[in-house]
């Protein structure tokens, strides 16, 4: 049973567009919410992360929005570029290192 539910499974966006990936969780003990990015043939790498005491975190073109009351968080990729084409995983943890991952979203950015 997946503790973090992620959608959509895949999405296609035009270059310059906005990609949005959503995640939801039930366990209110989760206190850390990272996003990982994985390119083909590589392992996932930490992209950006947020704690539940803030509602938004932005790093360059990547933004996490967090809604604690709804137990949802999302990743927005602004001005999407072909180099952003990858699989994105949301995750959550209670002790900082034992992560529960979502199912993943494959993002394809068309030039």
């Amino acid at each position, binding site marked *: 049973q997946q503790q973090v539910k992620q959608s959509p499974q895949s999405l296609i966006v035009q270059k310059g567009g906005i990609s949005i990936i959503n995640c939801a969780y039930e366990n209110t003990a989760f206190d850390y919410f990272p996003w*990982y990015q994985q390119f083909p043939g590589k392992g996932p790498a*930490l992209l950006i992360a947020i704690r539940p005491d803030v509602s938004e975190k932005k790093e360059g073109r990547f933004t996490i929005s967090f809604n604690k009351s709804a137990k949802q968080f999302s990743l927005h990729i602004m001005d999407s570029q072909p180099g952003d084409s990858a699989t994105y995983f949301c995750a959550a943890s209670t002790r900082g290192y*034992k*992560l*529960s*991952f979502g199912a993943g979203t494959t993002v394809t950015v068309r030039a």
Partner: protein
Amino acid sequence: DVKVTQSSRYLVKRTGEKVFLECVQDMDHENMFWYRQDPGLGLRLIYFSYDVKMKEKGDIPEGYSVSREKKERFSLILESASTNQTSMYLCASTTLGVVGKLFFGSGTQLSVL
């Protein structure tokens, strides 16, 4: 840069074989993990280790065991491989006090025939 190295990129084994997947990290990390990655299921934690000779079950430990005799090396063992263990296996490590930042290897694609 942190480097997590998995011994094989691709591995093909027969049903019933004993399989060893090896992982080595070069940053003196205390915590090491084994995940399997399957389409539509994401990454699922098999086992993790927070110290030499210490191990803890993850979410899907059945059919697997692990060994950590040295701090830098963490092995995943399939005692009797089955076809439903065909998957991508990912090793990761992290250090105490660094929250949520796992460093992953490139993975081993295991096929059990």
